């Protein structure tokens, strides 16, 4: 990261003194690197345990106090968490019964099914109906096909468990986010309070959420559900605040003039007028919930995520791939469906008098199908659940295929891996680890000061000191190294792809589809092929992170080029630029602020993915969180999680400041 910051500085403008400083700094760093660690005392690289601040302990004892002793007068904290669990457990068991287990009477193994779950035919009918309602027959067929795939390829049961969680998590996330947004819309003070919390929640890596939740709510589907909701709510809140604020002032003026009460104004005027924005939020909540439900299999959510996780642990290549493809299919189906709802054409008037059946054709059809298959299913079991004998298992053939690749291309793959490791990853790692922390913090502070003045300097310094004082410095440097190399590679591939996509329409469309698909996939999925081809280690992590984080690099580069006013390009053409000159002298400089924003997003995604790659054996902060998770050690998990969030915040603020400077310099407002 330091390297990338360093590269940015000269581009920032004609600061002569600054240039000299950075050249000297570079020379000094090279000197430190060559001389090695011997130059400094040991504590310059690792703070001894006894001088570390015992923040982990504080967190842990605070959590213990919460669970054991906290009492708010009318109720204890434990009672509060219990009632939360209960509140979620009721709808969750209902939806699980409906989609997966059927409604049971009695406990455990003596349970008797009194009503079977919805038949697979009925579920497919429901999604087809939703597809047609949201757009057209083409989408309906596509969604139906996706679900049919799940049935035919033996993923149905797990997929329904996953779906049952999503069906409950999404309304909670959407409604919770909307209510927070409404409160923020009404009270600017409240908005000021939650805005930094939302920022932090979006940068804290997902695993770090899981640790305290595991501690408070125990292992199980409800804890997983809570993690999912907490994870998916911040973006909904943010989008909802934006959509409410985006409602034209005239509309709220009108509402007031019509004599609306505050509540009428909100629910009859503002919320309906903001629907299209809110639906974008709903799509986000669905996709984030899916992502999290898969990850939360680590704290007890069953379903497809659990299948992947246990396959990875057993190194069962075929099983992992099958479940992974199942997740991909489910993700794409849910994404297309919810996007279709978000962009549904507005209603058109109709003059035909409406009967119940005419008005709700799909509700009626689906209800009939559900009842008929329920009754018939009692007599003919294949109608109730897809017959096992007709299932196609692709697990073994997939495993064979991977084996075949590994046998025939082992040398090639290994060659790439070694090359990148030896000539790129290891050197970067060594550079970062060989710098004493004081020097690194000094350089970061100077960069912060140049980019954003005293405030950014203070922020950077205090966040760095937190990481240092909690004894996380070395692991943080490994995180920075992994994140840095991944981001560099993502940009080296992503930005040129984005530029070509902006210049060439056909290529642009193909790139668009690929990027969209990459972005809908839950992060967990990326681990599967990577582990299979490269086994565990830093390189596997690198590949997974690059795949996950490349999308914004491409997307922002494309957008950056496309948003350049045509007049400027015409000016370039008429003054006789060649295509090359046009690109390098006009387009790229003007697209720079956007490209920097893309870089920012790429870093954020890379950090969030990095934590998940702890599963494939990295040794960074992610691993720290992962270990904390397996030990339910809240203090350790939170400190490591916060350290990652702080790295993200430092990177984010610096790049934002850089992008702003670049924009000002270009006079782009």
């Amino acid at each position, binding site marked *: 990261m330091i390297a990338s910051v360093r590269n940015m500085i000269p581009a920032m403008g004609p600061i002569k003194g600054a240039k000299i400083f950075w050249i000297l700094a570079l020379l000094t760093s090279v000197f430190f690197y060559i001389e090695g660690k011997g130059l400094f005392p040991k504590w310059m690289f690792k703070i001894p345990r006894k001088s570390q601040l015992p923040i982990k302990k504080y967190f842990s004892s605070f959590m213990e106090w919460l669970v054991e002793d906290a009492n708010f007068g009318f109720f204890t904290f434990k009672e509060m968490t219990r009632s939360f669990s209960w509140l979620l457990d009721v709808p969750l068991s209902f939806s699980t019964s409906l989609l997966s287990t059927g409604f049971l009477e009695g406990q455990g193994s003596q349970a008797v099914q009194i009503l079977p779950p919805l038949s697979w035919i009925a579920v497919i009918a429901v999604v087809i109906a939703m597809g047609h309602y949201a757009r057209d027959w083409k989408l309906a067929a596509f969604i139906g096909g996706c679900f049919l795939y799940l049935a035919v390829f033996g993923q149905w049961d797990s997929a329904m468990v996953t779906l049952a969680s999503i069906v409950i998590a999404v309304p909670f996330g959407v409604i919770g986010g909307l209510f927070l947004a409404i409160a923020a819309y009404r009270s600017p003070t409240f908005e000021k309070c939650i805005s930094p919390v939302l920022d932090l929640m979006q940068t804290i890596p997902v695993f770090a959420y899981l640790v305290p939740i595991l501690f408070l709510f125990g292992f199980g589907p409800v804890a997983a559900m809570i993690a999912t909701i907490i994870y998916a709510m911040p973006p909904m809140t943010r989008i909802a605040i934006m959509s409410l604020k985006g409602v034209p002032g*005239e509309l709220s*003026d*009108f509402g007031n*003039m*019509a*004599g609306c009460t505050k509540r009428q104004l909100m629910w009859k005027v503002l919320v309906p007028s903001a629907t299209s924005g809110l639906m974008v939020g709903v799509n986000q909540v669905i996709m984030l919930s899916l992502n999290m439900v898969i990850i939360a299999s680590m704290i007890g959510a069953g379903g497809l995520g659990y299948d992947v996780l246990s396959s990875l642990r057993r190194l069962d290549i075929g099983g992992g791939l099958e479940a992974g493809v199942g997740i991909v299919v489910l993700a794409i189906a849910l994404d297309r469906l919810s996007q279709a709802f978000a962009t549904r054409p507005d209603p058109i*008037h109709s003059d035909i008098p409406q009967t119940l059946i005419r008005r709700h054709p799909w509700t009626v059809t689906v209800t009939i199908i559900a009842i008929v298959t329920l009754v018939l299913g009692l007599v003919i079991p294949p109608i109730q659940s897809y017959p096992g004998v007709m299932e196609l298992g692709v697990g073994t053939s997939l495993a064979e295929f991977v084996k075949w690749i590994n046998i025939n291309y082992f040398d090639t793959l290994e060659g790439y891996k070694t090359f990148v490791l030896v000539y790129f990853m290891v050197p970067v790692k060594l550079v970062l680890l060989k710098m004493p922390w004081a020097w690194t913090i000094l350089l970061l502070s100077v960069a912060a000061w140049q980019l954003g003045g005293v405030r950014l300097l203070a922020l950077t310094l205090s966040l760095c000191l937190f990481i240092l004082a909690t004894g996380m410095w070395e692991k943080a440097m490994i995180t920075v190294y992994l994140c840095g190399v991944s981001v560099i590679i993502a940009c080296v591939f992503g930005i040129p792809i984005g530029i070509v996509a902006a210049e060439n329409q056909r290529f642009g469309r193909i790139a668009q589809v690929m990027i969209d698909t990459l972005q809908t996939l839950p992060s967990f999925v990326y681990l599967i092929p990577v582990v299979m081809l490269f086994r565990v280690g830093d390189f596997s992590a690198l590949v997974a992170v690059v795949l996950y984080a490349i999308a914004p690099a491409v997307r922002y580069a494309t957008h950056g080029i496309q948003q350049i006013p045509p007049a400027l390009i015409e000016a370039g053409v008429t003054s006789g630029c060649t295509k090359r000159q046009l690109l390098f002298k006009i387009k790229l400089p003007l697209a720079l602020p956007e490209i920097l924003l893309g870089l920012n997003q790429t870093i954020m995604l890379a950090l969030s993915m990095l934590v998940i790659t702890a599963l494939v054996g990295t040794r960074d902060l992610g691993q720290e969180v992962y270990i904390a998770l397996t030990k339910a050690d809240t203090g350790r998990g939170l400190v490591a999680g916060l350290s990652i969030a702080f790295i993200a915040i430092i990177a984010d603020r610096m790049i934002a400041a850089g992008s702003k400077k670049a924009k000002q310099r270009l006079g782009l407002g």
Partner: protein
Amino acid sequence: MNSSVKLSCRGVWKIFGSGAEDFLQKHNNKPSSHDLKNAHLVGGVRDANIDIHSGEIFVIMGLSGSGKSTLVRCLSRLIEPTGGEILFDGQDLLKASDKEMIEIRRHKMGMVFQHFALLPHLTVLGNVAFPLEVQGISKEKREQQAQSIIELVGLKGKESFYPRELSGGQQQRVGIARSLAVEPEIWFLDEPFSALDPLIRREMQDEFIRLQNVLKKTIVFITHDFEEAIRLADRIAIMKDGKIIQIGTPEELVINPATSYVAEFTQHIPRAKVLTAGLLKAAFDSSVETAGTLPHDAIIADVADQVEKSDKPFAITGPEGTPIGLLTREMVLDVLVGREVVL
């Protein structure tokens, strides 16, 4: 005259920025532009005093950013004024509770917006019935009432359409119908025709005049178009930088612009369209033979044909119907060709 004042505002200020109220008090309710600038505040409305009479069309005219929207929103208290008082039927609106304000707006006020402000998820019928819906009136009753207003504004047959299926002019008709649904006593229109094409604008102005002839509402009409103001207004207030510079009938503004700023608007307006026979008349002389009589408030342009055709002058009758002066062909011609006229 005072008894018929419907809405009046006294010393109303709206200052944007933090600490506006303290600032206003500190400067004794009379801060200058200079004071405002030094305190980094924006004077949206500065010391506005107007009386709006029952049944008149009161136009507020000014260029964009002059504070018209802010003033009209102060009058309905959509924006909380920083200082002053607003009397509606003698009651100070600024002292009314939230609940009272809701009641007043539900039953006595209506407003039309520049960009229509229609609710996208409701049909024409739903939009027009909306103000009745929030009052809790039953669906059947409110739709019946809405239906009759939709017919009044000429949108019969479009009840089940959604706003985006309509043209701009039709959308504003919905906005007008909706604001009339509660039969308001005072009707605010904030640049209602500014977003429309010139031809449609003209048509809507005619429609507006026709409606007012039927309804006889008390109207506050905002525009940035001086010609529109002249066409529609009984009286006009000219605003600049948040201040009201001059209030008067179109004729008064044209004849006696208070500042060169007002004069700039009025100088391009053909006098014949503004001057009335009563103002132009020569002294009455009963010995002169006349061609007929004309009322004192007849606009010259409207009677020019008639006067010009006859070689005898016309007698001008006053408010009581008695002759008060004479109007000759020469006088009308002077006005028409734009010669300097002595009044």
